[in-house]
């Protein structure tokens, strides 16, 4: 699908409105006081705020089962993005300097950092309130202060109807473009339990984005070393959840639904397409409500954020894309501000058409709100 009008196609490449677009689908902002969530107090329902301030209540905090001695820079941040003692991603001016001015990202889509009310094990009403407070904090402290940022709706999906209400509420902000969810929950994402969330996303023209959390284990649990967790957790979970969405008929029921899987890299997509297609040919009768090959659902409904794209070389990536016809599947992501963030420079070796698809075109075709926001 063309993303430029006929009139703009007549312009030279440097004059087209999309010429310099770089849409970043995985950007992590962080409240200045971190996961204590003290920054949310002004935005929190008065009853639940007492649990954040320990004033007649006590919140035990975001669950943090992950614990590794990771050989990475301070705060898990790219070395040249460390700014004194500021928490990673916690200062808007640093994000502008590092990401927008430094990397040339024109449209960062912020999605929080290690904050997933859906994975809170108890007190679902508190989780609902926390999500709403974060959303209001995000608007006031980030979106309203920097017009180039786009944002996310955080929800407590363990209460799907309340999550849907929150999506409806936040969708009134024009630069909210997606719903952010953790990769792992108690129920797999294909469970019909979550349908109100998908329906709310669709009726508000929002994409649903999945990102691993500190609760995302590998298939074998917590491996001995960080390298094992960092290799397997995200792509394994992404594969499982994409499979769950497909075989539970989510995309047959909601063909408009678009999902983006973050931080799993690029190569898991192809294996899953091949493997799940093969299994579907043999076991279709197990899931007769699935009407198309899984690979076709992936091409039309699933997007993979590219970071870390360097798990393959450019030429290897091009071959994979050609083999599986997945040129529409990838959207650019830096994973700002983390130590293994990708720069858009890594796209330079790709053919121009594929490079532009990843820089902006696929995102424009995936996120219904972006075209209008960016005027293209």
């Amino acid at each position: 699908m063309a993303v430029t009008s006929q009139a703009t196609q007549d312009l030279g490449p440097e004059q087209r409105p999309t010429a310099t677009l770089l849409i970043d689908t995985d950007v992590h902002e962080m409240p200045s006081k971190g996961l204590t969530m003290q920054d949310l107090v002004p935005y929190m329902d008065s009853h639940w705020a007492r649990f954040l301030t320990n004033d007649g209540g006590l919140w035990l905090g975001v669950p943090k089962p992950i614990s590794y001695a990771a050989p990475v820079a301070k705060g898990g941040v790219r070395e040249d993005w460390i700014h004194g003692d500021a928490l990673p991603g916690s200062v808007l001016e640093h994000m502008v300097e590092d990401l927008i001015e430094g990397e040339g990202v024109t449209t960062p889509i912020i999605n929080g950092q290690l904050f997933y009310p859906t994975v809170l094990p108890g007190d679902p009403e508190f989780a609902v309130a926390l999500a709403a407070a974060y959303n209001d904090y995000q608007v006031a402290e980030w979106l309203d202060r920097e017009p180039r940022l786009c944002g996310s709706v955080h929800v407590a999906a363990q209460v799907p109807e309340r999550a849907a209400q929150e999506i409806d509420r936040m969708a009134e902000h024009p630069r909210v473009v997606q719903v952010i969810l953790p990769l792992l929950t108690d129920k797999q994402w294909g469970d019909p339990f979550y349908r109100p969330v998908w329906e709310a996303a669709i009726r508000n023209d929002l994409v649903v984005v999945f990102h691993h959390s500190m609760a995302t284990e590998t298939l074998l649990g917590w491996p001995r070393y960080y390298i094992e967790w960092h290799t397997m957790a995200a792509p394994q979970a992404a594969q499982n959840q994409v499979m769950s969405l497909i075989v539970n008929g989510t995309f047959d029921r909601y063909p408009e639904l678009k999902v983006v899987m973050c931080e799993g890299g690029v190569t898991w997509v192809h294996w899953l397409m091949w493997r799940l297609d093969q299994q579907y040919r043999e076991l279709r009768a197990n899931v007769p409500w699935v009407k198309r090959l899984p690979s076709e659902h992936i091409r039309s409904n699933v997007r993979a954020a590219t970071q870390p794209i360097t798990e393959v070389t450019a030429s290897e990536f091009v071959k994979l894309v050609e083999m599986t016809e997945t040129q529409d599947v990838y959207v650019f992501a830096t994973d700002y501000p983390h130590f293994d963030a990708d720069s858009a420079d890594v796209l330079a070796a790709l053919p121009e058409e594929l490079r532009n698809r990843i820089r902006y075109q696929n995102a424009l075709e995936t996120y219904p709100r972006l075209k209008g926001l960016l005027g293209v």
Partner: protein
Amino acid sequence: MKHELFPLSELEPGQMRTAVVDGIEVLVARDRDGTVYALRNRCAHSGARLSGGRLLEKVVGDDVDEYELTDELVVRCPWHGYEYELPTGRCIADPRRVRVRAYPLTVEDGTIWLEKGK
């Protein structure tokens, strides 16, 4: 060219059997409504003889946990379970890319005839 196979009376609805035409093994199957169909007797996947599999009601459903058995019969490969439509030979799961050849049949005076080019 038309090839005489066998009397229709030798194949009850819901059954299948094989025949050999010009050295090609053909699966002849009879749907519940009495219509007969012929497919090449080799699965497009790994080459198993489809005649070793089963004629089963096609399973359909429009939502999770909805399983409905239809009157339409499909042949299921004995090796990996690929399902083929009798009229077209197309694999139900992957009709665009996976199919076995389907041959036109006629029934004349109670005998099944198969039309096959060279």
